[in-house]
């Protein structure tokens, strides 16, 4: 696998290195997103995992820090800006807890609101 496809943390010369793929980060972020109230899961299902999650979650590594970008729909009635902020907190917390990689920023893109009567939000 190409080096830019994974995040590597050096624990020390003796212990070896830990490498975490982008898919893993995207999946963790995606799952965290489903746990935030007001976020509409894509197509009324669970958040996609692995490669599929990367369509909605972007990950960048700069100077040892992770920058995450995620696209979401918000359920109508929930304040978009508050949901977005909770999502940022939640993703930062989860990714840092599970990967031990420092998260520099979580950029949230709200592409639409989903009305309760809409059963299946279109994929954006």
């Amino acid at each position: 696998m190409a080096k830019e496809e994974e995040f590597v943390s050096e624990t020390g010369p003796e212990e070896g290195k830990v490498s975490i793929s982008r898919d893993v980060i995207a999946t963790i972020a995606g799952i965290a997103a489903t746990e935030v109230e007001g976020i509409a899961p894509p197509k009324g299902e669970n958040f996609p995992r692995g490669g599929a999650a990367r369509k909605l979650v972007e990950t960048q590594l700069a100077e040892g820090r992770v920058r995450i970008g995620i696209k979401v729909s918000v359920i109508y009635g929930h304040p978009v800006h508050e949901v977005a902020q909770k999502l940022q907190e939640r993703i930062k917390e989860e990714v840092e807890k599970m990967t031990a990689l420092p998260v520099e920023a979580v950029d949230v893109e709200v592409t639409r609101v989903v009305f309760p009567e809409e059963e299946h939000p279109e994929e954006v």
Partner: protein
Amino acid sequence: MAEQRLVLERPLGRVTVHLSTLEAIAARAVEKVEGVRPLRGGGGLMNIFAGPEEGLLITLGEERVDVELRIAVVLGYPVHEVAQGVQQAVREDLEGLAGVRVGRVDVFVKQVIPPQEALVLEEESEEGGENNG
């Protein structure tokens, strides 16, 4: 036309809100006001607000938006009160549900609709627009 976005810088990163999101919230706010109907010649309640030429235009500023609305009022409702109700509903919902500062909300009442026709419009939209009579 590239879709416009509202960008809010937050401590944990950037929050980007697509304009269509704001339009949907504003359109729904208008629908909640009694006595308002979409302009004649348009599609359903939501469709009428789809294009900037038709019912709803949102202009983005820096962490602030201006809104322009074209509506029809059902005859019998006090036009200025309905229009003010629309202004208030749109402002409240955009501020409360999207967290944006709302500058101007300009409402243009372009038509009045006789109550009988308003009823027909309602039935049509309830039946999914199948009835063309």
